[in-house]
């Protein structure tokens, strides 16, 4: 699976493409599945207990639990509630989309692009894309100002 930096870059690209002003809510949604998945570390606090009573990693890499978690996380923001839920869930979906491009021997799926350890390729491609979009944005603003 891609690293967190790739998820952040992909979320930022989406905010640029769809002209979303509250970028950090989308980026928060994009990093939440991996952060919430690390709740499985709780298992290590109880040595001897059966591991993985709840598989937090898989739980927070499914759309419905993420949708529910978006409603909970949005409560902590003083921002139009449904707007917050929408942006956070958009970030969640971007995370799942990028994770879905991970190759696996088990399944010759629809979009296997890169192995999990080839995360650096995602960083390079997404960084270049983000820089290009930023340059395009600057150019558009300049055109509007002169036009």
């Amino acid at each position, binding site marked *: 699976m891609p690293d967190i930096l790739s998820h952040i870059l992909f979320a930022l690209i989406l905010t640029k493409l769809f002209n979303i002003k509250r970028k950090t809510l989308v980026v928060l949604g994009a990093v939440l599945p991996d952060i919430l998945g690390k709740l499985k570390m709780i298992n290590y606090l109880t040595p001897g207990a059966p591991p993985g009573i709840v598989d937090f990693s898989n739980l927070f890499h499914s759309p419905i639990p993420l949708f529910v978690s978006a409603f909970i996380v949005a409560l902590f923001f003083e921002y139009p509630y449904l707007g917050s839920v929408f942006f956070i869930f958009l970030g969640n979906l971007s995370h799942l*989309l990028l994770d879905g491009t991970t190759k696996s021997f088990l399944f010759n799926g629809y979009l296997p692009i890169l192995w999990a350890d080839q995360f650096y390729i995602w960083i390079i491609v997404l960084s270049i894309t983000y820089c290009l979009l930023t340059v395009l944005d600057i150019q558009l603003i300049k055109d509007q100002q002169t036009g």
Partner: protein
Amino acid sequence: MRLKRMKNKKKSDLSITIRIILGITLLSLFTLISIQNIQLKDNQTNLQNILDHPSLYEGRPYQTSGRVMANQGSYIFVLDSEATKPVPVLFLNNNLKINDNIVVYGEIHVDQLHIDGTPDMYILAEKVHMANSEPYKYIISGIALIIFAFMFFKEWSFSWTGFQESE
């Protein structure tokens, strides 16, 4: 002036069209990936269950990934984060070293490997992918979280009633 207005309108229409097409494309990709993940989960089961009850899973294909803890010639032992003990993998003619990170695909076999005769399982490796840059992912992710925290607290300030937009 009129020509410039027409040009700007065309650019704006094009921008909206591109966004709609992109949105539909992303939604379609997401749907495809969701179907793929449902099918993938049907084929995969919890590793700890397999290690505890290997006879139930004999003959099934399985994929595991992790660090090589020991190499005893044809048998290597891979520590997957989902299990409490390393997974034995039969991988003939391997050149693997201890601490190599790999992804292994193969069939689950059950054999009596213990002195007391208790059955144990091993995976007969068919495909292996080297994944030695995997650990660096965690370092990059740590740095990314710091960058995200910086971005986040630039836009939001903490108060007891919740995060408020920074002015």
